[in-house]
């Protein structure tokens, strides 16, 4: 099963993400703090990582550089005109449509040998 982590400091966004995607199709874990997420990634690397950019203690770039570069990171951000130092696999703009995330998950599910 595809192991997906989602990091966002907004509780409501995490709740919504769970409602949509924690349906037994994937193995989903969510985090509200960057530090916790980084630790979890190190302990048990996911197949796919969704992160927010703007968070109180660290931003998306800093988190991405702190993580094993082989892990694909998708940025879900409310920013506009933001330039990133890290080359994210994909950037999804908030407010996003559920299918945008769904398509990416499916894409990686297909890549992963069953």
């Amino acid at each position, binding site marked *: 099963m595809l192991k997906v982590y989602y990091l966002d400091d907004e509780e409501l966004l995490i*709740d*919504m993400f769970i409602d949509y995607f924690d349906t037994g199709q994937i193995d989903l874990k969510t985090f509200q703090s960057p530090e916790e997420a980084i630790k979890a990634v190190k302990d048990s690397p996911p197949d796919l990582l969704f992160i927010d950019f*703007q968070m*109180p203690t660290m*931003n998306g770039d800093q988190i991405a550089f702190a993580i094993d570069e082989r892990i694909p990171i998708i940025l879900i951000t*409310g920013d506009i005109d933001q330039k990133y130092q890290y080359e994210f696999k994909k950037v999804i703009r908030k407010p996003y*449509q559920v299918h945008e995330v769904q398509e990416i998950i499916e894409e990686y599910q297909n890549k992963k040998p069953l």
Partner: protein
Amino acid sequence: MYEKFFHLSRDLFCVANSEGYFIEVNPTFSRVLGHTKEELLSKPFMEFLHPEDIQKTKVVLQSLSEGQDTIEFENRYLHKDGTYRVLSWSCATPKDGENMYALARDVTEIRYTQRKVFQIEQALNNHSIIAMTDAKGVITEVNDKFTEISGYSREELIGKTHKIVNSGAHPKEFFKNMWDTINSGKSWSGIIQNRHKMGHYYFVYSILSPFFDNQGNIEGYLSVRVDMTDYINLKFAYEKTYNILNETSSIAKVGGWEMDVATGELNWTDETFKILEVEKKKGQKPMLSEGLSLFTDECKSIVEKAVLECAEQGTPYSLEVEAKSAKGKVFWVYTNGKANYKDGKILTISGTIQDIDMRKKAEIALEKEQMKTMQNLKLASLGEMSAGIAHEINNPLTVVSGTIGLLDRFKDDPEKFQEKLSAMSKSCQRIEKIVRNLQKFSRSSETTEKTSCNLVQIIEDSMSFMIFKAQKGSVEFKVNIEIKAKVLCDEVEMEQVFVNLLSNAIDSVSEVEEKWISLDAYEKEGNVIIKIKDSGPGIPDEIINKVFEPFYTTKAIGKGTGLGLSISKGIIEDHGGELLITHEGPHACFTIKLPINK
């Protein structure tokens, strides 16, 4: 037959005996002295005498008794009304008898007139310059004052004409007119400039009068003069000052005015007529109503109220109002007024009026320009904030739009359904709040509104705008707010100041390793103090005094307007506060001090 003389004469006749009693007086005696004949005969005549004259009279009587036949002298007799009459006596004692025969004339009026003439002459001599000439104008007599003022001795003057003191200042016609007047038998008066023996000039007010002989021919002339030199010099100095003042007023475009409170009549200086473009008519003074009509309709009532309050209660005023000249020109003037009292009553009010059109219009233009700059600055800060705002809005928006798709899924689970609805509603409220703040911030505040408010909310709102920028730059906020008191302020302007200072602080830590901004707010000695300090390298000494100057910026082109701090300082000062920059250690610290609203 001789008795008729005794009864009819206007002189006083009397016969006295050697005991010193009148034994006979004629009726004139009673008429002149007011006593009846019986009264006069009832006591010694010495008792009617003025006490000072008793001794003198005794001496005369002594001489008579020693055989001198006639003696003339004067003494004063008491009148019934308590006054004294001056009597001029001729006394005789016939060789054969003991009785004394005396004749007197009442000379009281003559002596009085003589004394008066003498006093006038004395006064004239002491205070005026007097000269007499013959019919040809040759000086025959001068007093000491003449010799003093002219510098010539009496000997030098007598026998000469007045040409000796001629200054040459008057044309020939002047003297011709003078001579024509006095030759025709009239008096002439006027101011003449004369020359002192040493060469300097003096001015005399002269009255020249002809003298006539018994046939009515002009015998000579009398001139009475008064020294006017000091007055003329003073008047000259005054005129000079007045002219300078007038000229100065004209250059400064300041006019003067005075109003008679009782009549409403106005007195204007020339410049006032000029400023208000009113034609000056001789002998015609403008009235208050006319003066008031020279202001625009809007300003008329303001001026009228001020003038009336000044005239009635003595309240002084100064106003900047729009005037409308007699020719219809509308322009700005400064005008003031104050009450002038006499014996505790307001008699007149007076003041000035000044054309300040150029200055006022420049001021208004500057104000508009400043307003525009403020607005531009706000737009610039808005631009800077827009990224943060987008972020703030996009998060809750995602919740709303995303949750809509979930509602259908939970329609049979009321608890979950309610939970989703509340998440949506909460998110909507967040968006609403941001938008409201934004509206408040970008409001064009032509009229600023100061209300009593607690700065905590304003500081928190400002920080919410900047939190995104801070997070983006990984800047930590250290906030410590301990204020309970309120300050009188315009919320939006205050927010602008905090946004500006916080934004600057974030920029200034971009290059340093340790990035933090501290905000401390507390109360001290009647003020609220807010200190915003950052971990940046501080501001170099050579530019620390320039940071509040408009258009001064250290930021790259397009990054800063250079107006933020100058406008922030302006706003804080407009609130009666201070915005200071200091260093705490190596770090820059901006301190806002605002008075607590009690």
